[in-house]
């Protein structure tokens, strides 16, 4: 399975309130509230760190969870947010010539 790269979409507004990350899709006016794990993934979505690396080095380091379980959850979360145009997902780092995006726009 090839690596999955994620980046935050530009057409969103995000705010952290009371430790909860709230994200508004400007595209369809949908409001999302992220739990701490999802917030960690969102904040790490820099476009060039593979999702598996984010899960291993951030999520598994901070939460008591097995890598396989955390990665499965993360992929589902990314898929959900990509469907709403909140996150962009690609099989190559963003900014590279071979990046194929799914999700926003």
């Amino acid at each position, binding site marked *: 399975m090839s690596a999955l790269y994620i980046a935050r979409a530009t057409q969103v*507004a995000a705010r952290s*309130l*009371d430790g909860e990350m*709230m994200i*508004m899709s*400007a595209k369809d006016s949908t*409001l999302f509230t992220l739990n701490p794990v999802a917030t960690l993934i969102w904040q790490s979505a820099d476009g060039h760190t593979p999702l598996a690396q984010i899960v291993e080095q951030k999520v598994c380091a901070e939460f008591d969870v097995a890598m396989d379980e955390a990665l499965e959850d993360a992929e589902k979360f990314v898929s959900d947010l990509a469907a709403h145009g909140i996150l962009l997902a690609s099989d190559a780092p963003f900014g590279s010539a071979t990046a194929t995006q799914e999700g926003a726009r």
Partner: protein
Amino acid sequence: MVEHVLGDPATIGFLPANDAASRPPYPEIRQRGTVMVEVVTAADQQVIIEIGNMPVLVRSESPEFLRMLMDRYSGFVSAEGRADFEIDVDLVPPGQITDEEDVAVRFVHGRWIIERGDLRAEWEAETRRARIVQSANSYSIDTALRILHSLILAREGGLLVHAASAVRNGRAFLFSGVSGAGKTTISRLAPPDTKLLTDEISYVRRDGASYVAYGTPFAGELAEPGENMRAPLAALYLLEKGPANTVAQVSQSEAVRRLLENVLFFANDSELVGLVFESACELARSVPVYRLTFYPDERVWELIA
């Protein structure tokens, strides 16, 4: 973020033509000293409707239509003065004007286009001038005005909210909730020293680091315009009916979620949607927000402070 229909449409009827023989004698309006009607002459083809410290000049060739507006926006109108925006109203016979069932708002080539079956409005953002095509009723222009204000407020950090609001001891309180949550009920229960700003649509503007609530003529079941006044916003209450009167502060994130459910915003515009979200977050950060569960009796007002 759903538009709600306010009040009853007050339509000027187009009366059926009578036979000349059965027509009543023409009443001399100016000599009927007991009739409390302000006469708008042909030279006064405009009224200024000022809501939220934002005067909007409305121009029409129909004196009857202007009289209707003066009645509908009573307390918020003047015949002259400065205006920040101008609207020309082109009156057409009643009938379907556009194919849009629900209100649709979009930005095209520097103009906001507002459409619903009963109206079509174009507002040029740069010149601050708009033209509305509608029949002679206040329901259509009411919608256009609310949308105009919501678009302007979005850029200024303000909000139109489905909420009753009232002023007591110089401080304003908002009571937000969907239809049936109790906006009109809590307005009716207000103590005598309370000034009601509205029982349906609250108008909130930023004022430095704080917020100010203004009275609006947008009424719900009370069917009465609010007081035309302003006061600093002291608290927002999220209304819920329940078996007892209780109040509890909610988290900022919960406040934003609930507030956004009750914000009036119509435009399919990603930039403004982002700004409305930011405004809701700022308001939740700056103003205490409580869940107010209330049993409908006047003692609930003992919890408002």
